[in-house]
């Protein structure tokens, strides 16, 4: 048991914070939210130069070859300043490739991701299927040496900012239990249509219609029919990392709130001297510290190759509730000024609610915890 970050990880965290405070700010968050893709190429290029995209990519594939805890440290810093989500989506692509064990794909894609020339995302959810592969309807039909994909994907993050997508489709349409396969599809493939979803927080999520999209068999990631295992393991890891992003966000909201409680005077005194306010802040700090421990526990277990499914779901259920809950308490403590869009708080409140729901809301993860408890 060693609950602290290593010296190297502390340095990574400090450098990331310094870098991001220079390169990214709330004005840019607002601009990115209004842009079509949400992507920021200037920031991207600098992140690439720092090696962030390749952080968990093996050195043999052009990456840095570090672990999940190192990556979580970066996610936390990114979460503090709400960087564009194309980073997270591309890392999810990296996780899928690594989980698939697909050597040719590793050689081909990972080095391009590490050098910043390839961005990816994962298209799994459908209008009537979110967590259960049995209900995926997108079909991949094999004819004349090619697969033809048809169906609709929903809530695909950062599709417009991506160059390539991994699409989950069923190669055996007759069976509900098997056949899910991941296909690599280039964004500009004929028949692929991307429509932005109108999200309340400006999250870049998309509907993707696949209308007889033709892809070669080589575009299959890993083993045909084995795609759901990869999806599940990828999403578990992405969930743990998203928790780290959320921890960063909620810690920032805590700081902003405590600062304002010190600065804001009513009745001739800082409102932070009132016990009602102090107790709200104390409760937030317990929830936030707990979120941090649950999250790093999950990430550290993954890093060591130990079972982490229950710990990941505990982390997501708790952290989702915490990030959201703290932003709502913060809105209450800030009062009018925090409600105004001139203030930055709502940027976090929106992201908090979006991250609470994406990759499974609390109830879904408590269901996973119950399964893991064996009841």
């Amino acid at each position, binding site marked *: *048991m060693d609950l602290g970050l290593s010296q190297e990880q502390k340095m990574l965290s400090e450098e990331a914070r310094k870098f991001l405070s220079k390169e990214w700010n709330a004005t840019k968050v607002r601009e990115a939210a209004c842009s079509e893709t949400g992507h920021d190429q200037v920031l991207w290029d600098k992140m690439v130069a720092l090696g962030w995209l390749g952080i968990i990519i093996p050195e043999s594939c052009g990456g840095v070859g570090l672990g999940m805890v190192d990556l979580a440290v970066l996610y936390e810093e990114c979460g503090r300043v709400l960087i564009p989500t194309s980073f997270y989506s591309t890392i999810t692509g990296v996780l899928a490739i690594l989980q698939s064990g697909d050597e040719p794909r590793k050689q081909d894609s990972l080095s391009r991701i590490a050098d910043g020339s390839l961005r990816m995302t994962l298209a799994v959810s459908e209008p009537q299927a979110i967590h259960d592969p049995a209900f995926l309807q997108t079909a991949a039909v094999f004819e004349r040496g090619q697969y033809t994909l048809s169906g609709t994907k929903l809530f695909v993050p950062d599709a417009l900012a991506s160059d390539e997508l991994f699409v989950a489709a069923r190669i055996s349409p007759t069976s509900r239990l098997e056949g899910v396969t991941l296909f690599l599809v280039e964004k500009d493939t004929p028949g692929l249509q991307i429509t932005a979803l109108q999200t309340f927080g400006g999250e870049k999520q998309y509907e993707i219609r696949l209308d007889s999209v033709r892809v070669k068999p080589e575009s299959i990631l890993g083993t045909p029919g084995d795609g759901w295992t990869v999806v599940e393991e990828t999403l578990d890891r992405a969930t743990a990392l998203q928790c780290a992003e959320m921890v960063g966000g909620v810690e920032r909201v805590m700081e902003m709130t405590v600062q304002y409680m010190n600065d804001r005077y009513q009745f001739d005194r800082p409102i*932070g*001297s009132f016990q009602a306010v102090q*107790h709200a802040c*104390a409760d937030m700090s317990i929830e936030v510290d707990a979120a941090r421990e649950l999250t*790093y526990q999950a990430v550290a277990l993954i890093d060591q190759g130990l079972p982490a499914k229950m710990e990941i779901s*505990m982390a997501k259920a708790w952290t989702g509730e915490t990030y959201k809950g703290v932003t709502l308490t913060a809105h209450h403590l800030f009062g009018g000024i925090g409600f105004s869009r001139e203030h930055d708080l709502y940027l976090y409140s929106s992201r908090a609610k979006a991250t609470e729901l994406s990759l499974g809301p609390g109830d879904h993860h*408590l269901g996973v915890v119950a399964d893991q408890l064996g009841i």
Partner: protein
Amino acid sequence: MRYDFSEEQIGFRDEARAWLQENISEEVKAEVEEEPMEPQGPHAKAFLKKLAESGWLSIFWPREYGGKGLSTVKQTIFINELRRCGGPPLTLTMTSVVPTLIRIGTEEQKEYWMPKILRGEAEFAIGYSEPNAGTDLASLQTKAVLDGDEYVINGQKTWNTFGHVCTHQWLACRTNFEVPKHKGISIFIVPMDNPGIQVRPIECWGDAITNEAFFDNVRVPKEYLIGERDRGWEYMRIALDFERIYIAAIGRNEMLFENLIRYCAETVIDGEVLAKKPIVRHRLARLATELEVHRLLGYRIAWLIDQGQEVTKEASQLKIFASEFRQRLADSGMQLIDMYGQLNWRSKWAPFKGELERAYRFVPVEKFGGGTNEIQRDIVAQRGLGLPRPDKVIMELVKKWMAERPQ
């Protein structure tokens, strides 16, 4: 970074578990069941003595006092195992007095008291609260006046848990009336066989017994003032940090939850296994998540202490979370077992020996004892998050208002 135990820590846990399983007899378990908080039966007492003689208590002490300086993480593992094996709780002597004495006692005091404690010849009741000094503890009025080579103690303590069975008091007394109230308190060790001490037991809802204790011209040698004179408030804060950490020991909640989940998985009511009902699954999953938080906050403190860090904020956070979680666990659990929840632990129908109802009746003291959770929230906010102290703010305001007052 790693959150799992190292092989060495697992080895230590297994060794401790094996020893405990071998030495905690059915008789000990029965006595602990009878009096979970302060078992006084002969077997439980004999077991605690054996625990001390076998070195299991002192291995966490520094080497210079006969220990092996094992880490706080290991101590936490050990305390956890002790409870899981059905053993008696460690006393506040071990969990609060000893670590405080190690930090603040003079060398002579440590050399004198530590072996006595280890031999079971010094078992303490904690004498802080008074009828008019509860949450406002620094207002305590029991006084100790130096008379030659002795202090003469007069006053009254309350909520003096263990007072009816202890050999000594760890007593906070006012030694200086000329300074602000926080700065005139000292800590004394007072042997119970000194003339002038009277103890009156108070029975509590949670079956626990606490006491009032009266001190009438009780004389102790001046060497029994622990550490330095008038620094008692500081020492009490250290001792209370440790007390809070121990109030929040995880083992009991782990056992309670495991029993609850087993019961739900095995029990059929109205034709359905309880654990198959979605609402039951949901409640259990939520409790499991909170239990994990409790466990992590507990080990985080142990780990931070081992890193030499101060843990005042963390001890208060843990105490708040652990006590409120235990209340939710007991309350939720009693709802899950439905009508059976109302049975007293002595009923043959009470699921897992009525552990839930006993926890439910005992847990209020965990929320207000060792400093109310409101005081803990003040500590987290002010010492942890840096929010202003209301009393200082008000002092400033009063000065300002006085200055602005028309002449």
